[in-house]
């Protein structure tokens, strides 16, 4: 295509669509470029041949006068509502109000669905946390041949110390896994995991920090009382599905309250079992012979009375129970 005139401009020029300074520029360009001028002329003739129908359609005599008279005769005609429908409506607050109402109705319709979707995502996040912690516990058990449990002379340490034992064994580095996403970010979750010995040192020197370090969203199994009356770690030989970790119970200080976990608004709790599966329980009963996940069969937040009695206490409560 010619540099003097683009194809688009050429058609516009021939159809009389170019005006003013732009038209003058194109005419100057055509004056200097005979080849393009000839092409434009051929285009003009081609369009003329395709479109000129030879009709001139002269208007009938007195059409304007008769039209004015026609309108004068009919101007009293009652206008229908269609006559007043504006082609382009000006801004009106009433229209804005209608649009806003529709928007609000849409939002109100969508809101429950969005809320449910967020809950499902949080629920999935909680299950993911427990699965990851389950992997760490599985690795720990492989290395140590037992679940995280303090030495027999230190059973006064809180249940949450299990996380620091996992960290000591090199199988847990991510402290955010200890925060259930369903109850919002936990302000007390440990910002970083430290060694178990260091934790014990902080226990003696900085009680507030210590309390913060052992307060998070999941409850841990504090084992059961053996026939020798000594307490020990849970025994996965007793059953293939021993509860190991779960959403923390509803509690006030060291008292375990009735009802389901507070993490999910009392609807139930996720429980990590010793076979690494995570199940949702709508009640605290996890098996026919273990009626309460958070209390032993004597209804106390202490180690189970036998190998089948699992007790999971909040992370700040001691292994030996309360």
């Amino acid at each position, binding site marked *: 295509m010619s540099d003097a005139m683009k194809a688009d401009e050429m058609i516009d020029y021939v159809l009389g669509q170019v005006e003013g300074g732009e038209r003058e520029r194109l005419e100057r360009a055509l004056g200097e470029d005979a080849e393009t001028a000839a092409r434009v002329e051929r285009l003009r003739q081609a369009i003329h041949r395709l479109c000129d129908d030879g009709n001139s359609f002269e*208007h009938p005599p007195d059409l304007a006068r008769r039209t*004015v008279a026609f309108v004068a005769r009919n101007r009293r005609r009652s206008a229908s509502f269609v006559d007043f429908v504006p082609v382009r409506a000006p801004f009106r607050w009433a229209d804005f109000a209608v649009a806003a109402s529709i928007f609000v109705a849409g939002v109100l319709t969508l809101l429950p669905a969005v809320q449910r979707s967020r809950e499902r995502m949080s629920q999935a996040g909680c299950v993911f946390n427990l699965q990851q912690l389950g992997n760490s516990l599985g690795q720990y058990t492989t290395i140590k041949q037992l679940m995280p449990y303090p030495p027999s002379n230190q059973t006064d340490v809180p249940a949450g110390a299990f996380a620091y034992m996992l960290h000591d064994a090199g199988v847990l580095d991510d402290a955010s896994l200890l925060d259930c996403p369903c109850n919002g970010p936990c302000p007390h979750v440990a910002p970083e995991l430290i060694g178990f010995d260091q934790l014990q040192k902080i226990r003696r020197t900085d009680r507030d920090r210590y309390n913060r370090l052992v307060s998070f969203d999941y409850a841990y199994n504090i084992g059961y009382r053996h026939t020798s009356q000594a307490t020990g770690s849970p025994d996965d030989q007793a059953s293939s599905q021993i509860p190991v970790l779960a959403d923390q119970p509803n509690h006030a200080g060291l008292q375990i309250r009735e009802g389901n976990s507070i993490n999910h608004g009392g609807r139930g709790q996720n429980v990590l079992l010793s076979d690494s599966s995570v199940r949702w329980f709508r009640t605290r009963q996890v098996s026919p012979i273990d009626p309460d996940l958070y209390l032993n069969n004597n209804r106390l937040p202490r180690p189970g009375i036998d190998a089948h009695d699992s007790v999971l206490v909040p992370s700040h409560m001691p292994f030996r129970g309360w």
Partner: protein
Amino acid sequence: MVKAIGSDSAEDLRQLSDEELMARYREDGHADIFSELVHRYERELYRYLARYTGDPSLAEDVFQNTFLQVHLKRGLFEKGRPFRPWLYAIATHQAVDSLRKAGRHPTVSLDQRVGGGSQESEAGNLIDLLVGEEDGPLSQLEESERQQWVRDSVARLPETLRQTLLLAYHQDLKYREIAEIQKIPVGTVKSRLHAALEKLQQMARAVRQDGDE
């Protein structure tokens, strides 16, 4: 001095733009102003309607009904908007209504181009198509035969393309005015116009092929 509207002479009214006349008519509905507007568009609008409807007597009725609508809808004419596209939009709607009542429905084809290549490359292809042959495919026809072919072929175009071609080629309206009438973007007006010319050229080639055979 502010001159009363009723005292405007015909010469004074002729000095005013369409938009000024319409604004004044909207205010007081004076018959002289309306008459001036009707006279201004008598030739131009009748020619459009006669070609659009293909029936001079129907075009006369549509012309009168169009100005009746202008009178009835004068309150809806927005200040600052051009008058010609508004008038043509009313006239086109009236023409479509009349054709429908007369049992002649304008064909609305779904066979319309919607996009594709860039406007520039499409225009380049169109020019090659139009000027590629020295005499053009209609050169064998007598002038009267060619004119009859144009009338028949334009009538066979899809409605939107035909309307755009009439407004741009026969009525000499600018793209922006056509866009305003048809309530479409200027780019779409150009696309439709190019599509109309391309279809006509294809029909013309078919004529020559038939003639050669």
